[in-house]
């Protein structure tokens, strides 16, 4: 579950002039032909760095994303929901595993990535810093956050890096279950008892503002962004993703008689674009920099899991073990 927002800012743009022009030309020609880049191919440092950054943040978003819905894993009502909620949260952990592995092929170890996550050096999707107050919040996350993630991930699956594409293909297939499961749960709530309707509307009200920031602020177009698009690292702009998401899901929310808590939300029939109240980007920045309702808890839980598992890992470590990067 990842929206892609806020990853391309703040990276220092290495000068491509330091790269070997012949190799760079060959690399770019390969991407232009529609071929994937594989781990042992030559690649510009900027490409490697940006991909590590992006895939790593994506992986962190999965492992931290397991926590808001995990909040309700022991309380899911009925067998159908209980088993699916377990499977869904499990998938998020599984996605993290796949993505950390893809990032490892580029040269950053899982140990380093987990350290950076826990020490706050590396970000994850900001929405997971918000709490899941009720079961209905969990349903909204399963449906709409995953829906947003699919928009982003479908685009990125067409990107140029082989291991990331392979991981995303598997992830997208599993997200199809998340989306349907989430929709199913929301539909049951929205068409259920007055209490259930009230719960789901309240959850939608709470989650709508974070959802609108899920894809990140509008991209500032720069030569940097253009390069990343040419290299098929960045596949769609944040605004394109947001528009696509609104196009696909606002009608599905409305058909359930639910109210989207934004009086300005409407589709401009002339431009075909959705108009909405500009999200509170100051809050977004504040939260992503650590001052959100759940930042401390999310990292503390992850850290505790790592620390309480340390004796297990120490015990099993084979002294002859030798780390080599995964192959693909």
């Amino acid at each position, binding site marked *: 579950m990842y929206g892609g927002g806020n990853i391309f800012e703040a990276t220092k743009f290495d000068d491509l002039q330091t790269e070997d022009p012949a190799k760079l030309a060959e690399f770019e020609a390969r991407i232009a032909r529609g071929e994937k880049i594989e781990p042992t191919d030559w690649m510009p440092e900027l490409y490697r760095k940006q991909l590590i950054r992006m895939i790593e943040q994506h992986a962190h978003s999965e492992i931290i994303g397991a926590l808001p819905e995990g909040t309700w*894993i022991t309380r899911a009502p009925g067998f159908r929901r209980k088993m699916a909620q377990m499977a869904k949260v499990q998938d998020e952990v599984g996605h993290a595993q796949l993505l950390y592995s893809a990032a490892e092929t580029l040269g950053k170890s899982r140990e380093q990535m987990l350290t950076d996550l*826990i020490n706050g050096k590396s970000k994850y999707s900001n929405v997971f810093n918000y709490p899941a107050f009720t079961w209905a919040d969990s349903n909204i996350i399963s449906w709409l956050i995953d829906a947003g993630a699919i928009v982003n991930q479908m685009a990125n699956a067409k990107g140029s890096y082989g291991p990331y594409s392979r991981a995303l293909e598997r992830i997208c*297939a599993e997200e199809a279950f998340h989306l*349907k*499961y989430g929709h199913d749960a929301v539909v049951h709530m929205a*068409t259920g008892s007055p209490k259930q309707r009230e719960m789901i509307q309240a959850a939608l009200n709470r989650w709508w503002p974070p959802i609108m920031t899920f894809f990140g602020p509008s991209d500032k177009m720069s030569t940097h962004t253009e390069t990343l698009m040419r290299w098929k690292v960045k596949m769609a702009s944040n605004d394109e993703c947001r528009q696509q998401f609104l196009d696909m899901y606002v009608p599905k929310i409305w058909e359930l008689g639910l109210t989207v808590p934004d009086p300005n939300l409407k589709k401009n029939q002339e431009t075909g674009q959705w108009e909405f109240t500009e999200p509170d980007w100051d809050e977004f920045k504040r939260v992503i920099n650590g001052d959100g309702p759940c930042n401390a*808890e999310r990292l503390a839980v992850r850290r505790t899991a790592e620390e309480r598992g340390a004796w297990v890992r120490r015990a099993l470590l*084979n002294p002859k073990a*030798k780390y080599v990067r995964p192959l*693909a």
Partner: protein
Amino acid sequence: MLKSLDPRVTRLNLPDGEVPPMEEKPELDQFETYEAFHQKKDGAAHTYVGPVHAPNEDVAFLFAKEQYSRRFPCVGLWIARTENIQVTPYGNDGENVYDMLRIEETAEQIEQPEPYEIFHLKKRGKAHTHAGRVMATSYLNALQEAKQAFGEKSPIVNVWVVKSKDVLQSAEDDKDMWTTVPEKKYREAIAYKVMDKITKYKEERKNTPAQ
């Protein structure tokens, strides 16, 4: 203590408030890696599904089984330590990497031949698939033998070579561990059909006078 909305977290008794940064994880904290290949049905070639971090191949098997075969039909799983797999350079799409490799004849063959497993990648971005087994005296010799045996099936953009003894293969009578996988519909999109409920809801709304 940290009180959470998640009762599981509350039970962890975490300190509430500032904590010093975590020490950097030591090397190999997450173990080494193993590569997994699954077999979708009897007779199908084993296909690469991805790596797992594990302390040894037995545990890697346990891990890969759930990470890579908890969905969709599967009848078998192979595990190989990443370190034990030798990899050729990648060719361009459409090419045959065997034609680009200079696989020189080894002058004398001292070693006894042993079996090697050969995996081919047909197109960049796809997954390596088992091409077959060859008898050889070294990795390089295995590549020569593989070129002879399966090298014509162009395009082949990349080859993986691993000694058969370094591949942990699930046994025939392990198949029953996967038999119920296709029945676990609760984790498939197909189990969730809501159109009827939505249609019924819309009908009811239409028939209710506006407030």
